[in-house]
């Protein structure tokens, strides 16, 4: 109300207030802030009034009530007798699980695709280009439906399960592999492993130091590695086999025991990875192409091998261009995981929908869901920005 030009700071003699850039700048910012604040306030008031009129309370008390619905897969113990908070946490962990695995795999695949796009081999080049164009230019939801219904659900049924020996099984209900089970000596063995790791790291560090001084490395790095492997093996025998594998066993309806990857999870992961990898491939290609030709030529002139050129010259310089757009691809992947709802993977959004429905409280639940996605994205951005800073420092 008081932000209008006439009442603000006194101007200097010659410049009229409305042309004083400093005043205008501050006033502009204040104005924008006010506009935003008012829009938010009106929207919030609107929401609260509307909810009030319909007699809908606003609160999160339902979180402590019994959820009553089943969730198909859960990394933590969950049953219908758990609370809504437990259900929400289950959904969150499922989202994080698929996102983290998805980001790692998409980065690896994207790297390969990006390099393949630059390959001088005609076939590799065209295959990569075709892949990128196909994946980038069709909607992810459609891809997910195809992957789930036309690929994973078309796998053989229980009776005709594909099997590798008695350990690995693949059918419509998922992929079943042996699950490692910790035995009594597991803790001791872990401790021995830790010692081995220290030895290996120490060996490598020593080798590097000697190398820098121009002394012979005495193959200390290799020696460390061998020492680690030897320790691990001796420890394994000494503790009497600290890990045993539980095999999946076929029962009437399904396989029981072992590790299971559900078709919903696998389909979602596959969809997210191949979709995002196409974008990452383009980011990588752009980053590599932005490294100046002179750098390449200079590296070759120094006699570096092609692998060394890529590893020592091109990638370090490409990274600082690649990392920022890569961050947004990671964010996209995490957010796109909410499409899980279409194929029945119980992620955060899907569990949130069910909660909203069963509690009759869509607004608080959706605020909770939105806030959680926001937090995931912000943390991802933060980590990527830290990494970005590290990469940038290398620049000269």
């Amino acid at each position, binding site marked *: *109300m008081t*932000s*209008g*030009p006439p009442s603000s700071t006194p101007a200097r003699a010659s410049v009229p207030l*409305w*042309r004083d*850039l400093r005043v*205008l*700048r501050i*006033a*502009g910012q*204040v*104005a*924008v802030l*006010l*506009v935003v604040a*008012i829009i938010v*306030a*009106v929207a919030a*008031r*609107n929401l609260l*009034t*509307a909810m009030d*009129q*319909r*007699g*809908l309370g606003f609160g999160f008390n339902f979180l402590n009530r019994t959820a*009553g*619905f*089943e*969730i*198909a897969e859960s990394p933590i113990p969950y049953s*219908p007798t758990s609370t809504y908070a437990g259900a929400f946490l289950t959904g969150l962990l499922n989202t994080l699980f698929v996102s983290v695995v998805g980001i790692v795999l998409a980065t690896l695949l994207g790297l390969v695709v990006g390099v393949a796009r630059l390959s001088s081999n005609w076939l590799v080049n065209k295959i990569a280009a075709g892949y990128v164009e196909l994946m980038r230019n069709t909607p992810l939801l459609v891809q997910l439906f195809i992957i789930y*219904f036309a690929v994973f*659900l*078309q796998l053989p049924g229980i009776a005709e399960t594909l099997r590798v020996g008695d350990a690995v099984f693949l059918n*419509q*209900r998922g992929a079943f592999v042996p699950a490692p089970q910790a035995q009594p000596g597991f803790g001791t063995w872990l401790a021995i492993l830790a010692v081995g790791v220290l030895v290996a790291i120490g060996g490598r560090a020593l080798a590097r130091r000697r190398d820098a001084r121009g002394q012979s490395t005495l193959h200390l790095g290799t020696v460390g590695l061998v020492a680690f492997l030897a320790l691990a093996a001796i420890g394994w025998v000494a503790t009497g086999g600290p890990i045993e594998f539980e095999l999946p066993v076929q*029962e*009437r*309806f*399904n396989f*029981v025991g072992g590790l299971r990857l559900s*078709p*919903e999870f696998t389909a979602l992961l596959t969809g997210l990875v191949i979709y995002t990898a196409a974008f990452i491939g383009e980011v990588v290609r752009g980053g590599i192409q932005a490294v100046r030709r002179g750098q390449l030529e200079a590296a070759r002139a120094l006699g570096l091998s092609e692998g060394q050129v890529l590893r020592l010259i091109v990638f370090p310089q490409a990274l600082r261009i690649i990392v920022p757009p890569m961050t947004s691809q990671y964010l996209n992947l995490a957010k796109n995981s909410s499409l899980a*709802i*279409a*194929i*029945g993977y*119980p992620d955060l959004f*899907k569990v949130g*929908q*069910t909660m*909203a*429905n*069963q*509690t*009759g*409280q*869509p607004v608080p639940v959706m605020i909770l869901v939105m806030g959680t996605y926001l937090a995931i994205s912000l943390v991802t951005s933060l980590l990527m920005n830290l990494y970005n800073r590290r990469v940038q420092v290398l620049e000269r």
Partner: protein
Amino acid sequence: MSRRVLSIIGLLVLAMVVTACGDQAPASEQPAGSPGESAAESVAPEETAAATPAPAPAEGRLALVRERDELICGVNGSLPGFSFLDENGDMTGFDADFCRALAAAVLGDAEKVEFRALSTDQRGPALQTGEVDVLIRNTTWTVSRDTSWGLFAPTTFYDGQAIMVNASVGAETLADLEGATVCVQSGTTTELNLADAFREIGVDIETQVFADLDPTYQAYEEGRCDAVTSDRSQLVARRTVFANPDDHVILEEVLSKEPLGPVAPLGDDAWFNVVKWTVFATIEAEELGITSENVADQATSENPVVQRFVGVTPDGADPFDSGLGLEPDWVVDVISQVGNYAEIYERNLGPGTPFDLERGLNALWTDGGLLYAPPYR
């Protein structure tokens, strides 16, 4: 440079407008006729309109529907027999016909309905926000829905939850399903009942939950699940559109009570009464033997009950006023255009349809069923 200054000034003007508007007293601060004021006036009504998005409670939904001259009816849309698009693109089915009956009662024309296909997860919010005038979407009446979603009108279809399994499984009771995977749709009472029922008998099952109806049955048909659970009527209906309906059997066991009926938004008693009595009218008509074919002849009926019901008087006196705010002969519109309960049922679910569902609990109370309309007087 000058462009930038201009844009900043533009922002300032905007800020003044909005702040003035937020202050609710634009005229006192600025001289009349200034551009700021006229802009403020054009913004202000928008804001107040946005702050009161629900005209329904104040004016009443009955008036709203009349003004719109169309009934917005939330339906399922992918459930054969209840609400399903036929080959002509028309919404057909038991639930759809009750939407038409309501439109006939309020607007005198059964075709003035806009159908909104809603998923299970959308239906609650659609009612709460008043986006639909009524929800007739095979929705189970429960106490928490009655208090948080909307008011449940009388049950139009008494159903129970059942389980359909592939015939090759050879299961006959729930206990035979130990270790089986069951497909179910999220946001339903059946999702909750399923967990309860199997926990009660101590049988472990896996559930696979889908948000939409079509993927649920598609996944079951593809063999992702050994069984699928829902209201018996829905299982029967969906089975008819399977590639091989004979490969699937519905277990006899009933897991729960599923009374399905129309739901009206909360907080509008007059509208709720209209929805409620439209359903009762179809039931009452069946009890009185009034059908779409003979309803026209009822005008000359000597029976005072019938006279009241169809809104005629023998001696030219004013007809009976139901107090619902509808035309005196609204029942005639409903019955002549849509039919009585028996006609609606037979047309959509009875013998001659692929579903061939017995009336069972959905018979009149005089025939051993649960349908019972209070007196129309």
